[in-house]
């Protein structure tokens, strides 16, 4: 393969001992569209960060392996160098200044300037902006994309699809662009806008630009790409010609069975299940995790897993139920209609919530384990309170003894109940979060990403705790996780969320391909439950 434009060979990277890329190869030919696929955490972003010389790579010890461009080894240590190596990127979130014109955005920090008498003395930065030439350049780039918008219009009023094209125009305006990376570009677009974009990608490829396309929409992959590379857990799983493979195969390769963990035995018999909570047409406006109409029934006493790729809305469900983000739709709980957007009311109804954002929402880092543990119960149930009629005081003794009990029960490794939560390790922090939820004595527990960022031993402990609560106390648990493997270990049923909706509900032992397809949003019959 000597006609390769870009080759990345045997790339390895670890973050503090944790290997996130394990010898990945990637090669890209001029004029091809190459799809990079994988679940969250498979290593796609890390690979791209390496390609772009991002700060985060080099501040954490760099990477090993080789990058070749046009057959010559290069070392890219900053985004600037990536730009010099003719690599461009269209970001998922737009890097556009709304009140600037299209031209100004396309030329941001690459303005065309000309000398004036002052700049000759005082330096480059005082050169005059050459608006005329800049507009002409911008026009040329827009024309190439066949976009009919005025280059002097402000970006602020443009539809999202056009903003995306401004981003692309900026990249192709860079002279000599050879490689263009699209990072989930269609995620924010409407269908017709996405079609436009795909057509443009083909056009650019036809002009000889190599395109690296990151997406989770498998139908798009099949439609435009020449080759696909699939990563899983930091490893290269496959690199195939698109024509040699199928959606099913790709889906299966993406998911894969990671670790064989002991399957949990079925807890309740199927027939006499009682619906504890019913979500109807739930919309949650959580930025980055929009929920766009979920219908889901949660049965009493079950462990329901919610899976799906990042940004698809699975995280939004629990947050919406708890009223953390603006929510519409209908929630019925225990046969009654539950209030929307009212966290306190939900908590009072014995619904507990452990947030996915442990450090941001789950804990007060600068406060003691004790306060963190009792706070919700103190607020909602007025436990640990001494009531003096006129005012209510904390019951310090009760708080301490309860915290000590929790520390013992959950084996929280700490110096005592008054240690600050921020000082604990991730796993122990998670236990404090769970302890807080349990102190509330809930009937149903929403727990999101319970094992994110904690080590493998602690992971098992946390999951064991959940299973124990479910079995011994009969607590209903709704666990949301990006790790399909762990969902399959402990859940009775798993709902896969894609594009803000339930794509399907699967039993834990369904095939990898089925999971993979649902995660890509491909379902023949949404809502239908597989038995």
């Amino acid at each position: 393969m000597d006609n390769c434009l870009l080759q990345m060979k045997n790339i390895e990277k670890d973050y503090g001992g944790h290997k996130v890329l394990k010898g990945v190869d990637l090669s890209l030919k001029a004029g091809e569209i190459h799809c990079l696929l994988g679940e969250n955490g498979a290593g796609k972003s890390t690979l791209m960060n390496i390609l772009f010389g991002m700060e985060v790579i080099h501040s954490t010890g760099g990477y090993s392996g080789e990058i070749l461009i046009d057959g010559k080894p290069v070392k890219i240590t900053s985004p600037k160098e990536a730009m010099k190596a003719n690599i461009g990127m269209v970001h998922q979130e737009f890097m556009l200044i709304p009140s600037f014109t299209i031209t100004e955005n396309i030329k941001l920090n690459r303005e065309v300037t000309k000398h004036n008498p002052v700049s000759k003395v005082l330096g480059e930065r005082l050169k005059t902006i050459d608006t005329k030439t800049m507009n002409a350049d911008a026009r040329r780039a827009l024309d190439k994309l066949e976009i009919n918008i005025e280059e002097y219009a402000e970006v602020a009023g443009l539809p999202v699809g056009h903003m995306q094209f401004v981003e692309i125009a900026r990249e192709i305006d860079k002279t000599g662009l050879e490689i263009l990376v699209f990072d989930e570009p269609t995620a924010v677009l409407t269908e017709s806008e996405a079609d436009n974009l795909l057509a443009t990608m083909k056009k650019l490829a036809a002009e000889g630009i190599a395109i690296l396309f990151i997406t989770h929409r498998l139908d798009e992959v099949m439609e435009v790409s020449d080759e696909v590379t699939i990563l899983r857990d930091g490893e290269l799983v496959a690199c195939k010609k698109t024509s040699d493979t199928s959606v099913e195969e790709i889906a299966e390769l993406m998911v894969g069975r990671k670790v064989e963990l002991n399957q949990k035995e079925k807890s309740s018999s199927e027939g006499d299940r009682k619906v504890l909570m019913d979500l109807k047409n739930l919309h949650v406006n959580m930025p980055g995790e929009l929920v766009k109409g979920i219908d889901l029934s949660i049965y009493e006493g079950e462990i329901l897993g919610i899976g799906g790729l990042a940004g698809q809305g699975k995280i939004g469900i629990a947050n919406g139920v708890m009223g953390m983000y603006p929510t519409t739709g209908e929630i019925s709980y225990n046969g009654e209609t539950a209030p929307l957007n009212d966290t306190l009311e939900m908590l009072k109804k014995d619904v507990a919530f452990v947030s996915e954002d442990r450090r941001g929402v789950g804990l007060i880092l600068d406060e003691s384990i004790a306060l963190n543990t009792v706070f919700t119960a103190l607020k909602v149930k007025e436990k640990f309170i001494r009531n003096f009629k006129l005012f209510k005081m904390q019951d310090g003794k009760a708080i301490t003894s309860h915290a000590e009990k929790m520390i013992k029960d959950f084996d929280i490794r700490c110096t005592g109940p008054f240690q600050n939560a921020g000082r604990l390790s991730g796993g122990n922090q998670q236990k404090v979060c769970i302890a807080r939820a349990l102190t509330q004595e809930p009937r149903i527990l929403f727990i999101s990403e319970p094992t994110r960022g904690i080590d493998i031993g602690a992971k098992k402990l946390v999951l064991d705790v959940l299973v124990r609560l479910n079995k011994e106390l009969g607590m209903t648990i709704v666990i949301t996780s990006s790790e399909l493997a762990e969902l399959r270990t402990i859940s009775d049923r798993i709902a896969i969320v894609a594009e803000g909706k339930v794509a399907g509900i699967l039993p834990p032992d369904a095939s990898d391909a089925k999971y993979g397809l649902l995660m890509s949003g491909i379902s023949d019959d949404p809502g239908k439950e597989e038995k």
Partner: protein
Amino acid sequence: MKDLIMNKIGLPRLIITSLFLGVFFLGAALGLPVAQQITDIIKRMGMYGILVLAMVPSIQSGTGPNFALPIGIITGLLGIVISLEIGMTGFSGLVGAVLISLPFAVIVGYFYGRLLNVVKGAEMTIATYTGFAAVSAMCIFWIILPFQSGTMKWPLGKGLRNTFPLDNSYGLILNDFLAFEIFGVHIPTGLLLTFFGACFLVYLFTKSKVGTETLAGGMNPNFAKASGVNIDRNRIVANILSTVLGAVGIIVYSQSFGFVQLYLAPLMMAFPAVASILIGGATAQRAKVSHVIIGVTLFQGLLAVALPVANEVFPEGNLSEIIRMVVQNGIILYALTKVNSNGK
């Protein structure tokens, strides 16, 4: 070990403590009466203490140091002026002033809290200018309000005096209550009891249910929200309390000073109070009652000893005033640089 000390105490506090001790011993070496110096330190601590205490609820609620302290001070001054106008003296006068100022403080504190909820993220700046504007608006009222009492009015012309004595009403009444001398040090028992009593009440507040919720809301709004806390309401409650403490603080201050100062006197009073609590170890996001006691002792203590010492070394000019400006504003700047780095 060195790192531990630095982290635990913090560089600014270390510098100010050494400065304080240095000046203190320099004064002793220069032959200034040590007992007198200690007397001054204690008196100033008690005088300024409650004003500094007003910072605790506002910081704990997450609105940052109460730079709008002048608002509370004005309501306190209003309480004094009205109590004198209706001829109250002695202890009942003092209590009367507090009681009269309370409704004013609660009402303006409420609206001030509402205001802060609207301008989240810029509380400190807005608070400063709200305080300034309130002081200058009140200046107009000191002139036009129809007070008649002879001690307070200008003999000629309109309005209240800039400064008037409290010696015929309740000046020094707390300072002299159960006061005694030990080794030549004058102990203003009543003043100290009032200060520590107020400290204890604020401590109780922080340990109450509302106080706990307020603290959680200030430390991590998202955490509090997830537990169903009404953060905005608690911020208002905390700022009402802070405003009330400002009112009580200026009444205690004035009786201790022996004079009431109106017009522009409250304008800059927030800054030394903010600086004190910061010196005590608080940050713009975190404060405890202990920070108040440590901070007011260190900062006012430093100023109390610096004054005679500076006069001894530099008979001309006001060196202690310069020390106050540099230390006070330096520590506030230092705290501001920490606002962002704390992961906000």
